[in-house]
């Protein structure tokens, strides 16, 4: 114990609290800084794209019959006569106050609209990615373990169809067969007309809300509506996840430590899942996170076919209607999702891979 330690009155062998917190604080600050810079860049690029696009927000408001004076008045009212950089700073100021403006299309604040449509996408995407993981990962592992076998061939065909089949066509076929002909699932929409507005919205996700409300009838109906689009999205994720899993696993299975484990007489289950699979978890997290982010971004075509009021169709409708406040707000949210999922992936890396610490 040094004299200085004694003089500080600290117990020997324990680092000061500030020393322990400093790395955590540094990491947090670095992450927040990175998020802020990325968001600023995203806002700037999105704003500029929105302004240079051949879409006229004034015309969207006044209609094509408006006189020039009405047009000019609204042009001025929207601040479009100001320099672009000034417009951007006004926009930035509003966003910093969580004000994305009011949607022309819905007459609601954009933030309120997003709070309404995003849970629908979140619910669909989460179920979709769950299906994708549950089936994609085992299929990929199996295809790698039985490389060249009929299982591998089937996995390849399944993935190929997933990659190449237009989601629009597959969705319509799914609706036709499972809803139109067999009547196994509910049709387009989140819930049947008899169950709309039956459970009070808590999370905005009908499956969860119906469970919270204890209304299993609504849950069953909502599940019958979500299962088909979620399976469709799950299938597309499955295609990607299974191929990547197979590729990662093949690399591991050819490594020397796997041979050593087998020589030592370990069971195949043990070798595959406890050793090889454990080592691909970090790569797999990236793949899954990217897939999930893609689904959360909104699968516009799926949402259109299944009349799913999610963020993808919200942004698309807004874009086609020159509702630029909604487009910008939606894009920022999507960007934020990507950033958050990246941070989440980084955290998982640190948990699963000690070297990342």
């Amino acid at each position, binding site marked *: 114990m040094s004299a200085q330690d004694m003089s500080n009155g600290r117990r020997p062998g324990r680092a000061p609290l500030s020393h322990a917190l400093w790395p955590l604080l540094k990491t947090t600050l670095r992450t927040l800084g990175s998020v802020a810079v990325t968001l600023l860049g995203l806002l700037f690029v999105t704003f500029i794209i929105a302004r240079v696009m051949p879409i*006229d927000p004034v015309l969207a408001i006044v*209609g094509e019959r*408006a006189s020039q004076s009405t047009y000019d008045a609204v042009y001025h009212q929207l601040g479009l006569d100001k320099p672009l950089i000034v417009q951007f700073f006004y926009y930035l100021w509003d966003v910093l106050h969580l004000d994305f403006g009011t949607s022309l*299309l819905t*007459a609601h604040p954009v933030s309120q609209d997003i709070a309404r449509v995003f849970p629908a996408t979140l619910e669909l995407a989460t179920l979709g990615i769950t299906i994708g993981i549950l089936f994609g990962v085992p299929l990929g592992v199996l295809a790698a373990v039985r490389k060249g076998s009929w299982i591998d061939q089937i996995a390849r065909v399944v993935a190929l169809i997933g990659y190449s089949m237009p989601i629009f066509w597959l969705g319509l076929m799914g609706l036709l067969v499972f*809803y139109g002909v067999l009547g196994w699932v509910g049709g387009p929409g989140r819930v049947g007309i*008899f169950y709309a507005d039956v459970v009070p919205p808590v999370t905005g996700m009908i499956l969860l809300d119906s469970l919270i409300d204890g209304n299993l009838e609504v849950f069953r109906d909502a599940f019958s509506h979500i299962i088909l689009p979620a399976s469709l999205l799950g299938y597309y994720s499955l295609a990607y996840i299974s191929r990547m899993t197979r590729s990662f696993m093949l690399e591991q299975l050819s490594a020397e430590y796997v041979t050593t484990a087998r020589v030592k007489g370990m069971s195949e289950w043990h070798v595959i899942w406890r050793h090889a699979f454990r080592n691909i978890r970090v790569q797999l997290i990236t793949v899954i996170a990217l897939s999930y982010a893609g689904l959360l971004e909104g699968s516009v075509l799926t949402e*259109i076919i299944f*009349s799913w009021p999610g963020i993808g169709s919200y942004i698309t409708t807004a874009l086609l209607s020159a509702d630029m406040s909604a487009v910008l707000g939606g894009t920022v949210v999507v960007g934020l999702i990507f950033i958050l999922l990246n941070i989440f992936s980084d955290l998982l890396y640190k948990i699963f891979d000690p070297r990342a610490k």
Partner: protein
Amino acid sequence: MNVMNRLLCGAALGLAVSVSSFGAWAETPANMLVIAHRIDDITTLDPAESFEFAGSDVSRNVYGRLVYLDPADLSAGYKPDLAESWEVSEDGMTITFTMREGVKFHSGNPVRAEDAAFSLQRAVILNKTPAFILTQFGFTPENVAETIKAEGNKLIITTDKKYATSFVLNCLTATIGGIVDMELVMANEVDGDMGNTWLKTNSAGSGPYTLGSWKPNESVTLVSNPDYYGGAPAMERVIVRHVIESASQRLLLERGDIDIARNLNPEDIAGVMEMDGLKVEDELKGRLMYIALNGNHPVLSKPEVRQAFKYLIDYEGMQNSFLKGQYTIHQNFLPATYLGASDENPFSLNIEKAKALLAEAGVEGLEIEAGVREAQERIEIAQSLQNTLAQAGIKLNITVGTAKQILGRFRARDLDVYLGAWGPDYPDPQTNAGTFAYNPDNSDAANATGLLAWRTAWNPGDLTEKTAAAVTETDRDTRIKMYQDIQAEFRETSPFAIMFQQIEQSALQENVMNFSTGQAVTSAAYWQVTK
């Protein structure tokens, strides 16, 4: 079979059984009407502001007006609604409406002349997009207190000059003529907005339905008003679901989950026609498809060239191919079913006649640009036009773009040819006559971008005066004759070639009766529907 396999088989079986038990309803309840429709154009439900198709559908069923168009007899024109009767002063400038007694708003408040005066004054003061429908009669925010006023059970409106009574009353059947509950609206006023923000998403009417909910891009629910003065509607609940995709609408209809599908494409309409238990109903809508030739162009401004263009359009070919079931040939600026509409369609594809007219005008090797907005049907029409013009030696270059690009240039008189669509704003002939055949100042300085005739750089000559005269003619039959004469001259001399009028095809369950989309003159009505 090992444990894992047994578990997997059990899970699969359980899933199959549970999923197969999710059955869809075979049909909607007898007192409920479910419609699949594109409703993403609703931006507001305030009648003083609403100007879109789906929003007008809601408004028509939620708000009573002074006069209305009866869906069971649209050709009869306006009929008394909240105003029981009316009288016109001798000078033709003042109309005194007597309000119907005993009618209540959905809130329970009585419908009074004060509410009617407030509603019309409010629309003028707010001055939103459709306000011109009222302000064209000389109402301004400054004078509305005097020109629109309530006296006891009477509402008195005074216009700035004499207008055809049918013109004024037709305009009052438009969405902006909806009478709102003054007390309720003003109770929700914020920052002097006369309740505009609140009414965008709420309702304060006295019509056959009250607004249950509006979820943007998702659904609109209307609930019947049991106290409606015309009797409670048979359909106690109307749900309009936003379904974009035609195939999805068709599936919902075939499965019996909806009663009406309003946006089926021609292929799905053909499929529905072959199915038992379903039917298809056609109604003519107000939308017209036209081309406009720029009057500033040295060649296109020649009368012979304008005539030649009208013989270089393959009307029948298009109507019977890619426009089949969606559009019908119509060559006049007033849509069929409008007061004064004409069914004269004298032009048909005649290359030889067009060539002779072009030769008469001394035209050779003409190359021009046509602006088209990026909509499939318009692009296909432009391509057809390109083909037929080429047969007469005219090269047409098609520029496809967004509204900003194409409409912006048309408004700036910058396009040789504009291929566009036009829908009437209110159910009176003036709505189209006043833009196609009226242009008092054709100079660039006038900048009258709201007028199609100005955008086309066309001076309609005496048609401007004739159009102005038609809005003041009080005799209905004379007025009809005036519009027919204007259109006859317009067909021959104008730089516009009106080509088609839209048809709306709705597919319905066979038991759905009396549904009306409102034809060209108004919006959809639900209160008369039975199943």
